[in-house]
């Protein structure tokens, strides 16, 4: 190699070595100090209590522990923690909000409404959603195009269509069931 490049002499090699030494040293130093800093923060428990307090005030439901844990993990960024809570991803990311909350888990809600006994005027769901045509058609046909219930399309119009179909199916199915029940009662 040095045969092919006779111009590569000892001084230039030395210079290169020295320069690289400094570059590498600078590089590692920087890493070390950053790592040292965050280690220090972690060890010294140093989620700032004021930050915890701040988040706890915004979200009184969360336990202080969870908040501290999350803050510690993201290096004490209130913004990041808040953002995570707000987007509904949940703090600890063990799972998202949904799967943590089967229906039985919902907070015991004080309900404050007697279901209103409705008045008679008004629009039923069939006319509201223009379902009268579909309501008349034979049930078998409707059932055959059974909805694939849990779908999500990347396409906006498609999603809209799926939602509408789920809605219509729900109403029509309830109507059919009710009609059958009525017939059963009549006989």
């Amino acid at each position, binding site marked *: 190699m040095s045969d092919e490049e006779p111009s590569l002499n000892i001084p230039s090699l030395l210079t290169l070595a020295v320069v690289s030494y400094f570059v590498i040293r600078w590089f590692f130093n920087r890493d070390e100090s950053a790592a040292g800093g965050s280690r220090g923060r972690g060890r010294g428990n140093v989620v700032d209590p004021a930050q915890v307090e701040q988040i706890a005030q915004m979200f009184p439901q969360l336990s202080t522990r969870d908040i501290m844990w999350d803050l510690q993990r993201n290096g004490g960024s209130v913004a990041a923690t808040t953002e995570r809570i707000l987007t*509904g991803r949940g703090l600890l990311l063990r799972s998202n*909000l*949904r799967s943590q909350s089967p229906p039985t888990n919902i907070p015991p*809600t004080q309900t*404050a409404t*007697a279901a209103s006994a*409705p008045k008679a005027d008004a*629009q039923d769901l069939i006319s509201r959603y223009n379902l009268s045509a579909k309501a008349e058609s034979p049930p078998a046909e409707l059932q055959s195009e059974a909805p694939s219930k849990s779908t999500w399309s990347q396409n906006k119009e498609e999603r809209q269509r799926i939602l509408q179909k789920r809605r219509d199916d*729900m109403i029509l199915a309830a109507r059919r069931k*009710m009609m059958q029940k009525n017939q059963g009662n009549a006989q």
Partner: protein
Amino acid sequence: MASTVAQKRLFHEYKNLSTNPPEGITAGPVSEDDMFYWEALIQGPEETPFEGGVFAAELKFPRDYPLSPPTMKFIGVYPNGTVCISILHPPGDDPNHYEHASERWSPIQSVEKILISVMSMLAEPNDESPANVEAAKMWRERRAEYEQKVRDEVKKGLGL
């Protein structure tokens, strides 16, 4: 900025409700152009006079959702279907002084939890704080009549 957070969150909830819908609940924005206006269908819970019925409600979300709760209103056959339920009350104000903070609205609640709560409200109305005083009175004093009326309305709602 705030409304982007809200939109993102609502979209996320919409997706969850679509891919993994809770039993008897359909909900989503009327049009995705306005993520702040939703309609929801709730099935009447079984073994109640509401059984077999489907109830439509509109949900309106504030721009700072999920910091503030949405409002929910039954549509169609009800004189004033505004839903008054603790999960829809912001944590700060407690007009009735009996709700725990954990029962009221907070950003870790969700549309799904609201709808499930409303469903259970249909099963166990709380006549202490009725939306419809007359209905509550009937519920307390003439239960059979109340239930018959509900059943009639359920059918009417389905166009029968």
